[in-house]
């Protein structure tokens, strides 16, 4: 087994003392980011990215990906103890987690959440371990048409899978593409949409967009809710942890289902948030006692947490193998890869074995370390939320401003961060999804390049996207997903007609 050998080599890369320290630092920072409102996985990593420019890429990605795991763990703490989802993907955890805390079962809820996160992540990492090399080998034969088809699939699945109205998904996505096109055209060297402003020559950096949209936007949104946090306190002792662990194997079916949902939603860019909702919904529908959900049912904590962590982890699979991130956080990590001088995509598995397998091994270790850290330090993190928001809010604004400035040492970026913050607030309120915009901003140049290359090959004919079975089936799937919302319109129409006919008959 090649994969096992590679993985063992990866462990030898990840298990060095400095890397283990970076892992621990990453997890701790990640939990902190997950606990604080306004700082999340995506913008937290974006803010810290400039600090890693001079680090060894393997250590840097280990630290940054551990921040991501930490943030995934941390989100559960605030949802359960304070009924405040620290991250969007832990919203579904509040449904049953907070009632459990109110009933005095906070410790069980937390143990269940952390353990199921760990299980979800473990399955997803195993999937990456065995699927990634295969997918990468397969993708080595991809031409520009195949690449564009995969990118098309990514964006079409946003339209098909989002809860938001399709027009808003497309608008947000196209805004991302338009912003990505600003600046110098990489092929012809012409200036596009700069309108004579020298600041726009470089174009818009998606890191700034991420910090503004998710950081400043979130702070503004939190301000609406008022400034009071009222929470339950919890102390985790080993006895409760072990007792809860004894109960958990009963729910193996929930774990399996949620992991499957999570992995699927992570690889296709549904992301952790819809995965958690979907998994919660399925668990309730499949349950023998669906009425107990929302009132402190432990399964209602297990399902979304498993799915969110599985999705968050498996989002790295397309990022590593194809260079197409499955979530905004994966997009930020992808940005990091490019800054460290690594070209994401299938060649990574050939040319930078140390890096790839070190990262994969660190995912196993990082999640294990994360589980241990989070189980032992809950009271400490809960105390963080008792700091009044009037202190936390301005400090987070300062952190965001510093983060935005350090990306390019430019004041203009800080101003743009503020603009993106307002956009983020408006988009959130008006239910425009933000993930498609961020992904379009990241992938814009790449998508354009592969589209133009395909057009060059085919002399401008779109038929190249149907020219062989591989590219044809990818584009076909993309079209199905794109037209998915129409299907529900047709179904609604049919149902209405049936209802009308029934009414006419009676």
């Amino acid at each position: 087994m090649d994969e096992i050998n590679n993985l063992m080599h990866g462990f030898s890369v990840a298990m060095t003392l400095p890397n283990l320290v970076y892992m621990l630092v990453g997890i701790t920072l990640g939990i902190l980011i997950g606990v604080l409102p306004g700082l999340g996985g995506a913008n937290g990593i974006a803010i810290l990215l400039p600090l890693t420019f001079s680090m060894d890429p393997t250590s840097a990605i280990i630290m940054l990906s551990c921040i991501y795991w930490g943030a995934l763990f941390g989100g559960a703490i605030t949802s359960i103890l304070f009924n405040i989802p620290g991250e969007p993907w832990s919203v579904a955890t509040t449904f049953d987690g907070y009632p459990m805390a109110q009933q005095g079962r906070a410790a069980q809820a937390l143990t269940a959440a952390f353990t199921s996160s760990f299980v979800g992540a473990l399955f997803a990492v195993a999937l990456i371990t065995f699927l990634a090399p295969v997918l990468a080998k397969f993708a080595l034969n991809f031409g520009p048409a195949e690449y564009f088809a995969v990118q098309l699939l990514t964006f079409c699945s946003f339209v098909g899978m989002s809860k938001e109205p399709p027009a808003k998904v497309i608008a947000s996505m196209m805004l991302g593409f338009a912003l990505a096109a600003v600046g110098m055209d990489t092929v012809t060297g012409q200036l596009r949409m700069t309108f004579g402003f020298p600041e726009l020559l470089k174009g818009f950096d998606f890191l700034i967009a991420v910090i503004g949209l998710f950081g400043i936007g979130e702070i503004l949104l939190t301000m609406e809710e008022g400034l009071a946090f009222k929470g339950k306190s919890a102390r985790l002792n080993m006895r409760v942890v072990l007792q809860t662990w004894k109960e958990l194997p009963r729910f193996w079916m929930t774990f399996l289902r949620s992991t499957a949902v999570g992995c699927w939603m992570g690889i296709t860019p549904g992301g952790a948030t819809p995965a958690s909702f979907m998994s919660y919904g399925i668990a309730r529908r499949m349950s023998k006692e669906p009425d107990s959900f929302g009132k402190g049912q432990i399964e209602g904590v297990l399902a979304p947490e498993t799915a969110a962590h599985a999705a968050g982890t498996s989002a790295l699979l397309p990022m590593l193998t194809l260079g197409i991130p499955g979530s905004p956080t994966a997009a930020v990590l992808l940005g990091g890869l490019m800054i460290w001088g690594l070209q994401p995509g299938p060649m990574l598995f050939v040319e930078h074995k140390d890096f790839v397998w070190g990262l994969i091994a660190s995912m196993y270790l990082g999640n294990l370390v994360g589980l241990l850290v989070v189980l032992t330090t809950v009271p400490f993190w809960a105390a963080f939320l008792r700091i009044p928001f009037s202190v936390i809010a301005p400090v987070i604004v300062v952190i965001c401003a510093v983060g935005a400035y350090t990306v390019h040492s430019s004041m203009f970026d800080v101003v743009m961060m503020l603009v993106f913050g307002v956009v983020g607030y408006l988009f959130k309120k008006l239910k425009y999804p933000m993930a498609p915009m961020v992904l379009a901003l990241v992938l814009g140049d790449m998508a354009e390049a592969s589209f133009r290359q395909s057009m060059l090959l085919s002399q401008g004919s779109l038929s190249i996207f149907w020219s062989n079975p591989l590219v044809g089936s990818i584009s076909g799937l993309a079209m199905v997903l794109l037209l998915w919302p129409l299907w529900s319109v047709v179904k609604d129409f049919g149902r209405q007609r049936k209802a009308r006919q029934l009414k006419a008959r009676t």
Partner: protein
Amino acid sequence: MNEPSNLPDGPDKPALKERGPELAVAALLMLLAALVIKDSLRIGIDWADDGPRAGYFPFYIGLLLLASSTTVFLSTVLRWRANQNIFAEREQLGTVFAMLIPMVLYVIAMVWLGIYLPSALLVGYFMRRYGKFGWTPTLSVSIAVPVAFFIVFERWFLVPLPKGPIEKILGF
């Protein structure tokens, strides 16, 4: 999380309806789309000898942006009376602006004064105004925050942050 803004509230609470901002954002996106299309036309959307020209791809992006934002715009206009959803209550908007305005001033001040002094002022202002803290905790936190940033960024990671006249006097 429950979103109180989506619930139809009683008439006693003044609130901003969703449709106004909805229309404004859609109109803004339409304007941006028009800009994208206009500039793509300027640099050429057809083929040159060496392949598609620079405006080829953005042109279609602009068209799609225009189409989708027009859809949102029109559906908002068509359901103008039916849509009574609330964007935010007046009071909530007040707290949002209470954050946004100091934030704008903070960024403007950063251009002239560097990052450290405005950061201290921002933290101090919030602690005094909304946290009702005494002078001792306010001063200690608002000085500790920039100092911590200075140590972590400039000393530890060697990443320079913007500095103003005060830092110059202190000799950095």
